[in-house]
């Protein structure tokens, strides 16, 4: 990779790299800016993973506390969002595993919403958004953890494959396979609502 030019598009003094530098120098305003910029995607991502609002709030707190304590270890070439998602992923994973260990597994796959569907396509416009949201949320919860992870990062958070590989540590081949399968499973579940009628 060639050395980068000094030209940076649209980042000025509050670029992620600058914010990280400022946090390392003890600037608490900079950390607050990081929180304000990234807390929403982070809490959304964690919520997608754990499907529990209160827990998502708690884990978001844990994510940012860990981020603050280890921000000086962040490598210069790492994207801040990717790094934060990586921490959030670890925090969410630890929580999910702890939940399994405690044998307190909640059956997230509530069939009640699935039962609302028949095999006839229903136009999206005709579907109550609340119902659609509930369906997507429950369908996500039914995916296994790896598939849910890559699907969430790619489809719901528009991360690139490279970013997903960095966040998850998965190989490109694995993440592509998981993503394809996750899409197929999600498609199967939402098909009656979306009117999607093809097989990929």
């Amino acid at each position, binding site marked *: 990779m060639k*050395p980068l030019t000094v*030209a940076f*598009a649209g980042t000025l003094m509050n670029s992620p790299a600058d914010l990280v530098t400022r946090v390392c120098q003890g600037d608490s305003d900079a950390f607050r800016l990081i929180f304000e910029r990234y807390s929403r995607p982070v809490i959304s991502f964690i919520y997608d993973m754990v499907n529990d609002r209160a827990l998502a709030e708690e884990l978001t707190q844990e994510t940012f506390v860990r981020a603050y304590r280890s921000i000086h270890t962040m490598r210069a070439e790492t994207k801040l969002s990717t790094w934060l998602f990586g921490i959030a992923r670890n925090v969410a994973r630890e929580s999910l595993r702890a939940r399994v260990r405690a044998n307190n597994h909640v059956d997230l796959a509530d069939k009640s919403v699935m039962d609302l569907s028949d095999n006839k396509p229903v136009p999206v416009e005709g579907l109550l958004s609340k119902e659609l949201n509930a369906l997507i949320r429950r369908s996500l919860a039914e995916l296994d953890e790896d598939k849910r992870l890559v699907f969430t990062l790619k489809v719901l958070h528009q991360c690139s494959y490279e970013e997903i590989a960095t966040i998850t540590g998965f190989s490109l081949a694995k993440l592509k396979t998981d993503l394809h399968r996750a899409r197929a499973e999600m498609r199967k579940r939402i098909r009656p609502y979306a009117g999607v009628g093809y097989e990929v």
Partner: protein
Amino acid sequence: MKCEVCLELLEEYLDGELPREDRAEVGEHLIACAECSASFADLTAEQELFARYDRDVEVPPFLWTRIAAHTVAESDAARNGWYKRFVAVFATPLASAIAVLLLAIAVGVVVYVISRKPASKPAVATRQTGPALPRNGADPIKVEDPKPAPKQDSNVVASHRKSKPRVRPAIAGDQSDVLSSNQSDLDLDDLDTARHIEQTENLLRSIRNVPVSDSDEDIDVTYDKALSRRLLNENVVLRRDAEMKAKFPTKTLLTDLEPFLIDIANLPDHARPEDVRVIKERVKKTEIVAALIDYQDRGTNNR
């Protein structure tokens, strides 16, 4: 390209992850093949459906307070500890005497200098006595506004536009008892669209203003690219909403925005100058930023 090959690559094509040659081939095939084109339309519709996913989760206002208590507040407390120890040193009588002596000398020197130069410029020391100067004194943004702008994802350029009174709660809260406000006519979609337009304007301005030299050094557009991906997703949803609600000027504007967002979203993290230049020139030529400003200036109520 055969249909089965095309269908296999469709998801990666949609994700913008195909190498340039494959992308071109799939694009050509989609133009020629109605069946694959229909599959792609289905895939896009599915993507739009997921883009509409609205989680029942928000960042609670107290979250920052909790996080700050475990992070920045701890650090500040540690720094205060040092300060207290420093002050404690001066608590001894000898040290206090030295400090007073030094202070007296300093005051004497200042008085002497002022009396020698009565017509000199007034001292600018007033700023130094103000509370909590920003740590980074060279940062003009921090000097003007030490508090971070709340929930502004795009803190790039045109910050002057951020002061526009587009936030309904503030208006309703401050003046609802004075004005027969028609703010109730605004729906949340309008506010979302206004915020979206503002962020997109900032993005396009930043692209328009990025310096592109003749050297072949790459340009880091990582942040802009990520922002563009998010805005693109948002744009698709808002455009469909505008269409469904017959808000045709909004729909037209959002339709016009989409190619720019797609192009920026598909740039590599370290883009070649000529790729950035092409987008930059198109932003200038089409005067899309002016159209966005005009749209915002017309106000939400006119939409």
